[in-house]
């Protein structure tokens, strides 16, 4: 009896111990996170009703405009910090427009241009007649969140940070035209002048087109009074990075690294106003399937880059969702080495690549690849055949007279025959004893490129070309590409909104770091330089039309398709206006419908 009782007691004791252990573990874990960040929202559903949740693949690196480099970072610090000008992408022309309170670079057609300039810190600007300086007049009524006024000295201070090599800002390229930059170091005393608190003058060493001057002088400022004590070598790990002082429509409420960034509407902001939605939560959800599930269960409101293959199931499962697209900014291509890379590495001399050295062969390869099949099979209506690297969204410069090279394997075979390639005993083309066989490399983790590479392999096999596929880890792939170890590869570019392709096509391979193919055409260099000299971008249109014709003819790479990036949105979001400049570019104007009112 006594033994049984003791046994039971011991069992109950162990069980209690077990639950205590579980409890302690959970308490410990939640203590570390249940910190000072007290939410002021209501409970459960009401919290969701005033909170917009955006799922992100990864966390922001810094919420500091000088050193933040990821897209997530710039989306977020763009909401926290004020900006000198407001910019918007004009979808009718494809040109960027810049606005101060009382001045606009371009006057858009009626119905276009929804963005108001109310958030701009500049009242107006004046470009000098020689295009070598720009003077901004700032508004008087703009204040940092601590009540201090935003003054011209903040800009000068911030530009010194952007240009400091110890800080190593990724945006230091913006300072490349300032006085002194041509001699290797910007002379800030001469390059940026602040005669009074509301006058800001930038001086350039050469004439700069107005739109570029506006683009390059409107980097986001930091509050000088807050940051001036921070030494440059401590800038990247300063605790101030975790507590940004801004003036924009939102302010940082809480940042749990690798988990969530929570922004709250900044009630004090007049730049342009407090954000409409009270709380925006950027949640890190690394797994794609889980992001999709969360969108489907309405746990999040926005998921970027949804694969076209998932649309049907997603929309069927939840009719509160919709798919939105932005402009054509990203394209995939197959890169062919135009030059013998090994020879170039060894001797610095240019010799045509034994397989891809001839423009005729490259054209044949483009004809051999069924780009429509890739689009129909994978991207569907979210893909457009790509002719060159000037996007159809940049309407002012796009050459719409160009006819895409169609899929035509007979023509491809003839072109190859004309170049001396004939079928060998194994069915693979040969020229002077060399088989047309190569490896097509691509980076891992990209389902779209995997899909395309298999089709390309089949297409090429059909005309007697052996194409082996190899997928490499992204770091390895990029390093091999840079060190010119690959003969053929599939990759993609996301283009800038200002056309400047010299980095990719310039004949000086030391300067043009991204000319991985080794394509060299002096006329392309000339056209790019001529375009840069035009003070009005539209004046450079003839150069860009010719540029596209040359690339279309020479086929330095096979341009595959433009991708319309597709974003999943909850229908409870209203007022969103997506375009090529970004999914979140007018997020401070978005509104949330209470969940009960969302139409079924």
């Amino acid at each position, binding site marked *: 009896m006594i*033994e*049984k009782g003791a*046994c039971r007691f011991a069992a109950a004791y162990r069980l209690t111990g*077990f639950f205590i*252990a579980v409890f302690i*573990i*959970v*308490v410990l*874990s*939640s203590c570390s*996170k*249940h910190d000072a*960040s*007290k*939410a002021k*929202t*209501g409970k*459960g559903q009401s*919290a*969701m009703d005033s*909170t917009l*949740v955006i799922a992100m693949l990864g966390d922001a690196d*810094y919420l500091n405009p000088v050193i933040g*480099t990821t897209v997530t970072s710039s989306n977020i610090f763009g909401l926290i910090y004020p900006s000198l000008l407001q910019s918007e992408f004009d979808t009718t022309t494809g040109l960027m427009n810049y606005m101060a309170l009382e001045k606009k670079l371009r006057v858009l057609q009626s119905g276009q241009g929804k963005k108001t300039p109310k958030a701009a810190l500049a009242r107006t600007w004046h470009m000098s007649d020689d295009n070598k300086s720009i003077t901004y007049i700032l508004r008087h009524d703009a204040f940092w969140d601590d009540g201090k006024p935003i003054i011209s000295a903040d800009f000068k201070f911030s530009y010194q940070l952007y240009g400091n*090599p*110890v800080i*190593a800002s*990724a945006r*230091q*390229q913006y300072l*490349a035209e300032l006085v002194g930059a041509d001699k290797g170091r910007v002379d800030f005393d001469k390059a940026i002048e602040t005669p009074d608190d509301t006058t800001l003058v930038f001086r350039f060493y050469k004439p700069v087109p107005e739109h570029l001057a506006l683009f390059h002088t409107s980097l986001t400022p930091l509050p000088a009074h807050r940051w001036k004590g921070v030494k440059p070598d401590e800038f*990247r*790990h300063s605790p101030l990075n975790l507590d940004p002082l801004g003036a924009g429509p939102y302010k940082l409420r809480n940042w*749990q*690294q*690798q*988990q*969530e960034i929570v922004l709250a509407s900044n009630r004090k902001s007049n730049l342009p106003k407090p954000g409409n939605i009270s709380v925006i*939560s950027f949640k*890190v*959800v*690394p*797994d794609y*399937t*889980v992001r999709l*599930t*969360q969108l*489907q*269960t309405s*746990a999040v409101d926005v998921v970027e880059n949804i694969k076209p293959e998932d649309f049907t199931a997603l929309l069927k499962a939840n009719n509160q969702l919709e798919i939105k697209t932005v402009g054509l900014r990203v394209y995939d291509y197959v890169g062919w080495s135009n030059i013998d890379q090994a020879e170039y590495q060894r001797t610095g001399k240019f010799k045509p690549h034994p397989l891809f050295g001839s423009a005729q062969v490259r054209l044949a390869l483009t004809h051999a690849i069924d780009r429509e099949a890739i689009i129909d099979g994978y991207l569907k209506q979210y893909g457009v055949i790509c002719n060159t690297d000037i996007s159809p969204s940049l309407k002012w410069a796009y050459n719409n007279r160009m006819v895409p090279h169609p899929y035509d394997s007979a023509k491809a075979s003839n072109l190859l025959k004309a170049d001396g390639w004939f079928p060998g005993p194994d069915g693979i083309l040969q020229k002077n004893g060399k088989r047309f066989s190569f490896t097509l490399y691509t980076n891992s983790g990209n389902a779209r490129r995997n899909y395309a590479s298999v089709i390309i392999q089949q297409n090429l096999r059909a005309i007697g070309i052996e194409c082996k596929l190899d997928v490499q*880890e992204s*770091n*390895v792939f990029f*390093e091999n590409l*840079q060190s010119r170890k690959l003969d053929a590869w599939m990759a993609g*570019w996301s283009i*800038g909104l200002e056309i400047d392709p010299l*980095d*990719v096509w310039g004949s000086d391979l030391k300067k043009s*770091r991204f000319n991985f193919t080794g394509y060299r055409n002096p006329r392309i260099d000339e056209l790019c330089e001529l375009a840069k000299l035009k003070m009005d971008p539209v004046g450079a249109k003839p150069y860009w039309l010719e540029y596209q014709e040359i690339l279309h003819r020479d086929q330095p790479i096979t341009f595959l398709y433009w991708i319309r990036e597709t974003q999943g949105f909850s229908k409870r979001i209203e007022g969103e206006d997506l375009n090529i400049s970004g999914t979140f570019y007018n997020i401070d104007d978005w509104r949330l419908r209470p969940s009960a009112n969302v139409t079924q």
Partner: protein
Amino acid sequence: MLIYILKRLLIAIPLIFGVLTLTFFIIRLAPGDPAAFFIQPGISPNVAEQIRAQYGLNDPLPIQYFKWISNVLQGDFGRSFSRAQQPVFDVIAEALPITVTIAGLTLIANFTIGILIGIISAVRQNTFLDRFLTVTALFFYSMPEFWFALMMIILFALKFPVFPVSGLNEIGAESYGPLGFLLDRFWHLILPVTVLSINGAAGIARYVRGSMLEVIRQDYIRTARAKGLPENVVIFKHALRNALLPVITLMGSSLPFIFSGALFIEVIFAFPGMGRVTVDAIFARDYPLIIANTFISGSLIVLGNLFADVLYAVADPRIKL
């Protein structure tokens, strides 16, 4: 025993340094560049150079090594390249509580469920119940965790929306009060811990079953039954204690798991734990963070083995250290 432990700890020091030195050179041999992110059109070519200079990567490798080792000897493992230059141990300190929570709960569930199933299977050997449990255990044991996790999400978050899919807490959970917050956290942990523990428990159950079967055939068990002890006492007191000896080794080797994290589960359920820290660091070529993680997991493997050996000696008086 104390001398034995001290000896083992002393041997561990050069061992861990050897591991760290090897890691230091191996990761630098791997292709890839910590400053690769800054090599893209629109970013000045100077930036990657400046970043490399900041990280001290422009020095020759032996100099980098000596600088590094002298810092490590002073307890400074450096700052992370990829996570806003936080000191690496700060990064780890943020991730560790999350990993320890999940792994701690998982281990408790693993061993409790595993041992229970193992005992039942052994005691009811060759019955329908035993076969059912064996087949079920094997079924779960052979299932990949990430797939199982996705299936659980589809079942319990999509088809029957009972549990949350990801994160540690609901939006606005801070306003639920401490108890509500705690319960919410618990709610979020159910799916991941279930996934991890079902898989692990199945393995442990197989161990316990095997070892129990061996033990209950021993003479002293027959003696215990013969002297009229109740079956419960025979099984739990006499048989189980002896049968658990091999399980102790398992406990020791589970120690690194508690701190190194379960990558797939952390990625799928969006927990910023150690598994993600390690893998992100590898992909970003974040050398200081990779080395600090290697230091932690290396030390824990050594300590875990030592812990298992000591436990063995404690549990079994026949073993002398």
